[in-house]
């Protein structure tokens, strides 16, 4: 019988900690015990036999640290040999300690030991390959299941689960490590972890390590409330503390057993231990709990959840706002940004929408002439590096959707399928594989129906089809289609009726692209915001809107306050209490000159002053006579140390605001978009600290340069390619650590050889003039201002 079948009939018990038992047999701290599978198999077999005697049903292979990063050497100690030996040892233990109960060997998979991009430097694909190799080896060696454990990053979990699913047919169990607040290292909450793992079709999920059973108890309640999968609990024997240089755990066997019994009574289906739980703990656990009669059926939960790497958003209880700004339809600036690969603009939009109150961000990059497969993935990953909101992946290209789904960190909202057979056939298998909540458009091969009745019937059809793919109705959200009233005055009523019946008749959640309702009409926000309120009143669960629109957000906050969703109107008050006094503040800035505004770092005042100046002066005159001299004065003060970095940056921001006003003006007059020159900048390979480089970028941009920022950890060849592509006369390189300076040197050598017209300036904490000379840099910038001065000397020649 497979472990999944067995689990339906009885509780299962895992083993406890392995590391400390190996240490008590002589393994040195800091050394990896996995090689003992080969070097000292007797010790491993004896420990595992003790766990079997204690009543464990599942033995985890001694392979927590086994991966190619830690076992780079092939041959005797290759990943494959260690895993094969580990599975063999577990089987041998089972032979020595026979039982009538069927028992199982889990291929144990721990974290890679490196953090994934964007926080760390391991790519998702590399992590996947590492896990895939272990899974293949474990399956070949005869493991009964895969146990992915002690995970603290959703992205790494996703790589591991996909690797397990795509490289074996084994059941996949996953346990993660939360802190006492119920968050992973990278911030994800319990609901978010469950949403993602259910979407990826793990077979059982739970927690291990990090905490003792006492701290896990309250987290378990949340876990059980949201999980439709069997729950595993493998806590430590309490919290660790150091006693005479040795780690000990703070609860005894009785407390551990009592807490575990309570967990089993609450509904835990697989119980065991982690660090500090010895065979004696497990014996006490199995003794107390094996015969407990607990309900075996797990109630399926119907919460509609999407998640990011850091949080989950629940759709259905409280209206959800999906920011629509990252979608090029009708947005000139975004179109230009996408074409020029200007991710900075897009990221800014992402953060602004989040600040404005969006709960989810729509990501749509569909434009003629753009490689959508590549662009959607890349924009999605960049947005996930600055915003912790869940994303709505919005594309009609199934290949772009598949790539985005594979690399998304969390459980996304998917936009969309419709009643068209073709879209369902293409998209539903992807949803089934990767997980996600899908927007279902109420249209089909016959087009958009005119009546709500027909739209609801399409929704029913789509739901039935989704179920046939194994996609749960809770993961569908119905789009009743907002169509402009300028073409058909009945269309809003049809949409509203569809929304209402989606809730009342189908018992499902609804979504609308709200602003479509006013297409072709003047002052669209009037119509949009009132329609929004009407839709909310009819039960709308999620709205795709512009969260920076004041009238839309007012409709949202007011509705929540009126509909009893905002206790004591707290959110409404927080939002609008200061509204009365805010309008006064603006007036004061009107008399400040551009130069004063920049010197004092007043952003809005600088923009206002530039606007006023444009009424009487030529744009270039303003730049040359006011803007640049003011920036220079601030730069001088910075160099003389009478003013410091924060003020320099505030002035730079103010200058940028003025520049933006001037540029927009020049563009509106049909003038040229001049830049003073193009500069390529990057943090060199292996170096991941880039704040210094970013400060340099900010200043250079504010002096009017076109800066191509290649980011951090950039290989020499990529930098060369960019310099060649842009014919850049100046390149700035940053390095923080001595260990990465050789890469800087290599980059300089390459640039001097292949692009001799390009000067190279270097900077970063570790560099000095001598060091810069040694690696043949053309210039050493001791701070951000120095780089600007050097750029001026190059381009003003």
């Amino acid at each position, binding site marked *: 019988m497979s472990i999944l079948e067995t689990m339906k009939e009885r509780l299962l018990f895992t083993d406890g900690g392995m590391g400390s038992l190996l240490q008590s047999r002589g393994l040195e701290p800091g050394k990896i015990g996995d090689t003992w599978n080969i070097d000292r198999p007797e010790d491993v077999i004896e420990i595992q036999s003790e766990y079997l005697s204690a009543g464990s049903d599942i033995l985890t292979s001694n392979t927590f640290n086994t991966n190619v990063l830690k076992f780079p050497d092939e041959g005797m100690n290759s990943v494959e040999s260690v895993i094969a030996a580990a599975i063999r040892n577990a089987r041998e233990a089972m032979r020595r300690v026979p039982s009538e109960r069927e028992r199982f060997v889990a291929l144990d998979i721990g974290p890679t*030991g*490196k953090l994934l991009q964007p926080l760390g*430097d391991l790519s998702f694909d590399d992590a996947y390959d590492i896990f895939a190799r272990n899974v293949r080896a474990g399956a070949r060696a005869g493991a009964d299941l895969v146990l992915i454990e002690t995970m603290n990053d959703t992205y790494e979990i996703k790589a591991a689960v996909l690797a397990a699913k795509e490289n074996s047919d084994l059941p996949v169990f996953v346990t993660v490590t939360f802190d006492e607040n119920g968050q992973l290292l990278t911030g994800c909450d319990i609901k978010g972890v469950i949403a993602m793992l259910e979407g990826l079709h793990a077979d059982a999920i739970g927690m291990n390590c990090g905490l003792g059973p006492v701290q896990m108890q309250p987290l378990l309640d949340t876990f059980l409330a949201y999980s439709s999968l069997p729950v595993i609990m493998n806590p430590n024997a309490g919290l660790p503390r150091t006693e005479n*240089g040795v780690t000990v755990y703070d609860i005894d066997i009785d407390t551990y057993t009592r807490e575990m019994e309570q967990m089993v009574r609450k509904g835990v289906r697989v119980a065991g231990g982690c660090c500090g739980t010895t065979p004696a703990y497990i014996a006490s656990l199995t003794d107390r709990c094996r015969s407990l009669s607990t309900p075996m059926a797990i109630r399926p939960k119907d919460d509609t959840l999407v998640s990011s790497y850091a949080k989950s958003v629940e759709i259905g209880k409280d209206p959800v706002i999906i920011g629509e700004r990252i979608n090029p339809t009708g947005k000139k600036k975004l179109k230009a940004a996408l074409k020029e690969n200007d991710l900075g603009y897009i990221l800014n939009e992402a953060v*602004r929408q989040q600040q404005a109150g969006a709960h989810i961000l729509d990501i749509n990059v569909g434009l003629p002439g753009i490689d959508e497969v590549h662009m959607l993935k890349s924009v999605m990953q960049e947005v996930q590096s600055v915003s912790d909101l869940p994303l709505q992946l919005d594309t009609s290209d199934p290949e772009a959707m598949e790539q985005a789904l594979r690399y998304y960190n969390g459980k996304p909202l998917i936009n969309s399928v419709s009643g068209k057979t073709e879209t369902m056939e293409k998209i539903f298998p992807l949803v089934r594989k990767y997980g996600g909540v899908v927007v279902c458009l109420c249209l089909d091969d016959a087009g958009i129906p005119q009546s709500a009745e027909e739209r609801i019937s399409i929704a029913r059809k789509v739901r039935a089809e989704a179920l046939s793919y194994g996609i749960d109705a809770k993961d569908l959200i119905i789009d009743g289609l907002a169509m402009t009233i300028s073409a058909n005055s009945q269309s809003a009523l049809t949409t509203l009726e569809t929304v209402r019946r989606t809730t009342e008749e189908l018992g499902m959640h609804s979504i609308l692209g709200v602003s479509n309702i006013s297409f072709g009409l003047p002052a669209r926000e009037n119509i949009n915001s009132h329609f929004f309120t009407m839709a909310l009143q009819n039960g709308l669960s999620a709205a795709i809107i512009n969260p920076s629109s004041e009238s839309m957000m007012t409709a949202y906050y007011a509705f929540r306050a009126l509909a009893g969703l905002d206790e004591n109107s707290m959110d409404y008050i927080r939002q609008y209490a200061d509204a009365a006094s805010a309008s006064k503040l603006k007036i004061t800035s009107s008399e400040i000159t551009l130069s004063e505004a920049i010197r004092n770092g007043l952003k809005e005042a600088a923009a206002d002053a530039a606007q006023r100046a444009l009424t009487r002066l030529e744009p270039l005159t303003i730049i040359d006579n006011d803007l640049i001299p003011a920036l220079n004065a601030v730069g001088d003060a910075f160099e003389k140390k009478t003013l410091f970095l*924060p003020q320099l940056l*505030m002035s730079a921001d103010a200058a940028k605001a003025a520049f933006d006003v001037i540029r927009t003006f020049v563009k509106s007059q049909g003038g040229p978009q001049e830049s003073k020159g193009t500069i390529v900048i990057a943090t060199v390979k292996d170096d991941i600290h880039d704040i210094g480089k*970013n400060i340099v970028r900010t200043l250079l941009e504010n002096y009017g340069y076109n800066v191509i920022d290649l980011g951090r950890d950039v290989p020499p060849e990529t930098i060369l390619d960019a310099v060649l592509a842009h014919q850049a006369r100046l390149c700035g390189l940053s390095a923080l650590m001595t260990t990465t300076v050789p890469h800087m040197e290599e980059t300089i050598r390459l640039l001097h050889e292949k692009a001799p017209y390009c000067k190279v300036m270097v900077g970063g904490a570790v560099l000095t003039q001598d060091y810069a000379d040694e690696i043949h840099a053309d210039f050493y910038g001791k701070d951000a201002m120095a780089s600007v001065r050097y750029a001026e000397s190059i381009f003003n020649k």
Partner: protein
Amino acid sequence: MIEVSNREIARYLGYRGISPDPRVQQVIDQVLQELERSVRPGCLHRMEPCTLDASGLLHLGPITVSSLDLKKNLDGCTHVILIGATLGAAPDQLIRRYEATDMLKASIAQAVAAAMIEAYLDSEQEKLERMYLAQGLHMRPRFSPGYGDLSLDVQPEILAVLQMSKHLGVTLTDGLLMIPSKSITAFIGLAERPYHCETISCQFCGKENCLYRKE
């Protein structure tokens, strides 16, 4: 709550001699509050014997290092504490978010978080200091890989011995930098006689924020 001194934050921002003006201070306070809400500090430590062999190599429990500067720092020590601390991933995430929109806040968050991890380790260290003093052992200033001639190559071993990856989520990049980046590892010597600044010169001391440090 970690007590972070304003003077330290200003020092990390490059201020010398004067304090940030009220507008900058307001942003500092705001960023500090946001970091205080989101950091999840953690610290691990372990005491090991400290010996010097004939060839001049330091044996710090299971770790062997060659470093003249650390050797001077640990002169006269019988034991050493290996210590590792982190603020978690939140500062890195916050700094990245600010970098997309607001370099002022990004650079201030960088400075505040740097001051905060130092302050956190200081407070953890004080607890240890009291504990070891009761056993008649005096602590030296901490000394981290990357100071002086102590190479970062020792980082993988420190992280492994303290199990920082498993318990704190602290990992290393290929270039041996710690991620989350607001993390510190260090050696802290323990000796039977008290330590005075005169014992070792500033050059061999890790106390970078010392008031009396000679640059």
